């Protein structure tokens, strides 16, 4: 009997089973015991037990009563303790939760970044081209250009860009656009070593990625075989210096392996891994921003190029040399380039202007048409464009309309002193386009391009569709 009662008043189990407090259980137990006591006295009377027997029973009952009292005391104490502990635990848990929450906040707010940080960026585009006179309409996968950026503290950054393209036959072409180490020497001086995009002018270094370029294709004279150098291998110091409150002066000065003579008498500025002569090219760009949204730039470059031999070195044909055929030796010529650019980028307006002119002195070099080394006359390349874009972000209330940006560009590429190049490339080019900006670096565009070739007056019209994404 005692066992069952004990079970009932054990804290926890008893409580939940009966839904009663321990005191109550105890009271009912006492009542029960008292009742039993009287009943037993009656029965004792009935059976007339001996005094000794009665005394024994009373003693047992007293002992049991004592036992229950004690266990009640311990249980109450225990439950009180438990309650206290629970309360303490709750306080602790609350504190812990608060600490954890703080920790999460702090972690996401000011956790120090690791010393080596990196970022994967780049861009991709795809499109289609429809020509109005002749030529096939083509879907064109444009570019996939991943950019890899690694930075160690604020000491150095590596930046490298690869360009993947497919050619007309479906072959994948890979090119290294740039791979350079930028040393942050000072707030106003960065030292660049490696292969970098040319700082000459503004299109190549700043505007050519298709998610930035409002037209999606280069202006005449600013792509391959143009006036604007693509890049160089060498060193460059660059930076910006504030002048007064809002004005800034910028500089990018480079020494590089410089240009090379191309096979068609052109000058190739693609950034060569080895210099072809002892004379490095020296150049750069100086910029001035009277206010942040207006920039004026001046660029220059001076280098030397060597004329080409007809055959590979050591592949001469001694028997072809006769006394009456005199062969010229390739010579070295100076290439000079200068240019000016301007940008106005305020609110919805984006205006760009750029002019570049290069002059190559007369040079003895292998001439494909003549089949021998010949004197090529002075060659002058001049290219310029003006471009105006206006984002409709401030017109009306339609957020759909706000995403459109009409753009117009007109430019001219002049070539003198190289008939072959002039025929192929000299032109005026008009572009009219419409950009639909889905996000700041995600655009779908349609454009119309009209090329008028200066040499023969030929006109080519093209419709361009393109989607570009910078990530």
């Amino acid at each position, binding site marked *: 009997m005692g066992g069952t009662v004990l079970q009932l008043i054990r804290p926890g189990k008893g409580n939940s089973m009966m839904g009663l407090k321990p005191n109550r259980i105890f009271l009912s137990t006492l009542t029960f015991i008292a009742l039993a006591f009287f009943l037993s006295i009656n029965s004792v009377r009935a059976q007339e037990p001996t005094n000794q027997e009665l005394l024994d029973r009373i003693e047992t009952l007293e002992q049991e009563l004592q036992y229950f009292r004690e266990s009640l005391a311990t249980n109450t104490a225990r439950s009180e303790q438990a309650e206290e502990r629970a309360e303490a635990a709750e306080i602790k848990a609350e504190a812990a939760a608060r600490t954890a929450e703080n920790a999460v906040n702090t972690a996401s707010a000011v956790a120090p970044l690791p010393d080596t940080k*990196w970022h994967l960026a780049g861009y991709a585009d795809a499109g289609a081209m429809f020509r109005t006179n002749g030529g096939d309409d083509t879907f064109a996968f444009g570019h996939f250009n991943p950019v890899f950026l690694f930075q160690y*503290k604020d000491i150095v950054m590596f930046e490298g860009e690869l360009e993947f393209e497919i050619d007309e036959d479906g072959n994948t072409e890979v090119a290294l656009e740039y791979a350079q180490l930028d040393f942050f020497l000072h707030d106003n001086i960065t030292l660049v070593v490696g292969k970098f995009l040319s700082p000459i002018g503004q299109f190549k270094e700043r505007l050519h990625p298709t998610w930035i370029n409002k037209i999606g294709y280069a202006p005449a004279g600013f792509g391959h075989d143009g006036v604007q150098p693509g890049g160089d291998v060498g*060193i460059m110091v660059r930076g910006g210096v504030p002048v007064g409150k809002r004005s800034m002066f*910028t*500089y990018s000065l480079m020494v590089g392996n410089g240009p090379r003579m191309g096979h068609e008498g052109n000058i190739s500025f693609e950034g060569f891994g080895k210099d072809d002569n002892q004379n490095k090219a020296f150049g750069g760009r100086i910029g001035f921003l009277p206010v942040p949204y207006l920039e004026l730039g001046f660029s220059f470059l001076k280098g030397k190029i060597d004329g080409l031999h007809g055959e590979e070195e050591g592949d001469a044909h001694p028997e072809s040399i006769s006394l009456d055929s005199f062969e010229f030796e390739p010579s070295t010529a100076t290439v000079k380039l200068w240019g000016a650019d301007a940008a106005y980028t305020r609110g919805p307006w984006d205006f760009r202007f750029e002019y570049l002119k290069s002059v190559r002195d007369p040079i003895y070099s292998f001439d494909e048409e003549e089949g021998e080394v010949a004197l090529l006359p002075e060659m002058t390349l001049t290219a310029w464009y003006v471009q105006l874009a206006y984002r409709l972000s401030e017109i009306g209330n339609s957020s759909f309309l706000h995403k459109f940006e009409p753009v117009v560009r007109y430019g001219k590429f002049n070539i003198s002193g190289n008939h072959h190049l002039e025929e192929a490339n000299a032109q005026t080019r008009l572009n009219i386009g419409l950009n639909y900006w889905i996000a700041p670096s995600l655009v779908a565009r349609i454009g119309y391009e009209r090329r008028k070739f200066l040499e023969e007056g030929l006109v080519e019209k093209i419709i361009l569709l393109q989607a570009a994404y910078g990530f």
Partner: protein
Amino acid sequence: MNTLKNLILTAALSGMIAGPGLAYAQAAPDQTDPAQIARGAKAWADQCGRCHNVRAPAEFNDEDWYVAVAHMRVRGNIPGDVIRDIQAFLMASNKKK
């Protein structure tokens, strides 16, 4: 031409040695400093739309922003102190609520 080349090379090399020391002494951008964040917000609006559309703060996490903005320090010829303000602003504003 050669003198110029040597001059630049020498300047570059001495800079390479002195540079890391200088860079190391600069205070890192603090994305909890309200004054720096405010300066950064203004510089961001001034500088980051000069060449392309302004990219939204929510596009990248802290590390990506730190590096991308340092990249623009080179590309945009933006002074280092202005860059740290912009880093602080972007890292303070990129958290999704």
